[in-house]
């Protein structure tokens, strides 16, 4: 059963939006709330995706005995056809596979975040940004060249936990899963930002010394924030792998998985989760629209339309930075008390002044 074009477009859009919103929200915790310039977002995203490429498939191949004389990396398509045939009839295993893989990716992300936090608590900020960037480059370079991990330049196919849905509806199922995960993560980061912890993070961002004076362990908190942020980003990477059904190291670059989330956070509004959501939505929609209308412009231009996209994004980013550096939806002051209690206090104050 084929899906109508408009629905395919929408599903594609929502899936991409979900993945990038998850990654941007994780960056927002690190940069927006805590002020860590994580230019190595790619590290965690690629880590999550590489995990999904390397581990669950191997375990399933062992459990289902799907290997029979096939090489996991070289005959990846054959192995996965075998595994997916079994998965397509076994709903329970598919769902277990999905949940366990996401948890595993989150765990790998946390470990990578812990490794990244080693320089993060020692270095000055501009050195830190470049070190994190370099660490991400190293991981991707290993993924691209070490064939036994995820097949090097050719990539690997991964088990498809949505196969039982059938046909093209698997994309609908995958997109719904991504959106559910996004909602859970949004709920989580939003509750952090409203909690006392959220105010502590902002205090560390705005004035590290005074946060320390008030007894906050800045080093430990930064470490934890990087671990949480990285595990969220790794879940995003894992979901993007499940959506496409394969992992290719070349698909993970500094531009797509570090700079674009930065653009989304900056345009939408750092330290405001809904701003970041809006930023991701705008960014993804803009890109999608450009690619959709690519063929219309093609005859008139002596070059590939893809490059106009970079041009447009660069210009928009610079304009936002100069004229609206706080983003479209700026950070809101955090309410320490509920509105009812605040009104109560205001009323009492008014009574006092009236006396």
């Amino acid at each position, binding site marked *: 059963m084929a899906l109508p074009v408009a629905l395919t477009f929408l599903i594609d859009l929502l899936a991409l939006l979900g993945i990038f919103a998850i990654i941007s929200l994780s960056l927002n915790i690190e*940069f927006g709330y805590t002020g860590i*310039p994580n*230019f190595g977002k790619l590290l965690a995203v690629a880590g999550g995706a590489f995990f999904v490429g390397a581990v669950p498939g191997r375990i399933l191949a062992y459990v289902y005995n799907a290997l029979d004389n096939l090489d996991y990396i070289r005959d990846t398509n054959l192995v996965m056809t075998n595994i997916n045939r079994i998965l397509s009839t076994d709903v329970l295993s598919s769902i277990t596979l999905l949940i366990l893989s996401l948890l595993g990716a989150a765990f790998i992300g946390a470990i990578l975040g812990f490794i990244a936090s080693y*320089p993060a608590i*020692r*270095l*000055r*900020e*501009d*050195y830190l*940004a*470049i*070190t994190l*960037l*370099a*660490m991400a*480059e*190293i991981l991707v*370079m*290993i993924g*691209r*060249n070490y064939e036994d991990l995820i097949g090097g330049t050719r990539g690997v196919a991964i088990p498809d936990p949505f196969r039982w849905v059938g046909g093209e509806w698997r994309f609908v199922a995958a997109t719904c899963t991504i959106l559910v995960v996004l909602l859970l993560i949004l709920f989580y980061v939003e509750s952090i930002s409203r909690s006392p912890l959220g105010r502590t993070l902002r205090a560390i961002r705005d004035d590290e010394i005074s946060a320390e004076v008030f007894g906050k362990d800045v080093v430990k908190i930064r470490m934890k924030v990087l671990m949480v942020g990285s595990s969220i980003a790794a879940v995003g990477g894992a979901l993007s792998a499940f959506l496409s059904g394969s992992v290719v190291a070349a698909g993970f670059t*500094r*531009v797509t998985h570090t*700079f674009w989330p*930065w*653009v989304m956070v*900056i345009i939408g509004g750092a330290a405001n989760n809904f701003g970041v959501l809006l930023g991701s939505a705008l960014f993804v929609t803009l890109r999608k629209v450009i690619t959709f209308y690519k063929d219309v412009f093609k005859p008139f231009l*002596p*070059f*590939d339309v*893809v*490059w*106009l*996209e*970079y*041009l447009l*994004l*660069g*210009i928009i*980013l*610079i304009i936002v*930075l*100069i004229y609206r*550096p706080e983003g479209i939806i700026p950070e809101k002051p955090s309410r320490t008390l509920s509105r009812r209690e605040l009104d109560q206090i205001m009323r009492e104050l008014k009574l006092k002044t009236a006396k």
Partner: protein
Amino acid sequence: MIPPMFRDAIIFAALLSMLSTSLTLTYMTTKVPNFAHGNFATIGIYMTLLLAKVLKLNVYFTLIPSLIVGGVVALILYLFVLKPLMDRGANYITLMIATIAYDMILFSFLNIFADYLTRTFKIPARLFILKSLDFRVMGQPGLFIIAPLLAVISVISFYLLLNKTKFGIAMRAAIENPSLASVVGINVNLTYAVSWFISGGLAGLAGALTPLLITCDTNTGMTLIVHIFAASIVGGLTNIYGAFFGGLLIGLAERLGTGYLSLQVGTWIIAYRSIIPLAFMVVTLLFAPKGLTSIPWKKILRRR
């Protein structure tokens, strides 16, 4: 007879040290880690392609135009993007993002230009190498003389500029203490603008020579930028001469290190070549967080 591996390593190190020196200059003056620096070099690369392949000039004619175009592109970044941001009190993260945004714009223009060259003049504008256009001296490519010579000339002129000319001394004053410098009548903004022009020009110059050594593409600069930062950080990020030696060290370590290792453990190691500069950088940062020039060498030497 000089082995080709050694020769290429020296040329690469010379080009890298020119790039890291120029990156460090703008970092010192305006405190911006400039991510667009790699693409200033790519502009030089495509200037060479344009002049050598389309206009059929000698490859070394490209040096002056590359210097000027690179300088102008850097100056535009400073005057129209960074200066307005700095006037609004932007912090270094915002400035860094702005250079990335400018980098995207440059990248898009470079790709459009490459597509245009391919379609209009039917020349390969992607993954090209112009080694065959170089002249030869005593069986060696001319670049083997030109690149180290240019690197040494550039660092010596930096020394002369910063120590022997009035403008250079004013520039140093503006680096040390901008507000005090402007009180005594130094045009701080002018010194910053000039530093951006020099930086972009030198990067364009280094880039112009790159296609004579390695296979180039529109993303060559984006690949190189990580090496440039590594070299500059190893040198301390705030010291021009440190950056020069950092570039030499990283360039030689990458080329000779992988060359040596591939003989020892097998050719598979060549794929991981770029890890060497990054690993170098991480190790330097962990043990000498302010770079090699921050280590009190004189003290250590005196103790012996």
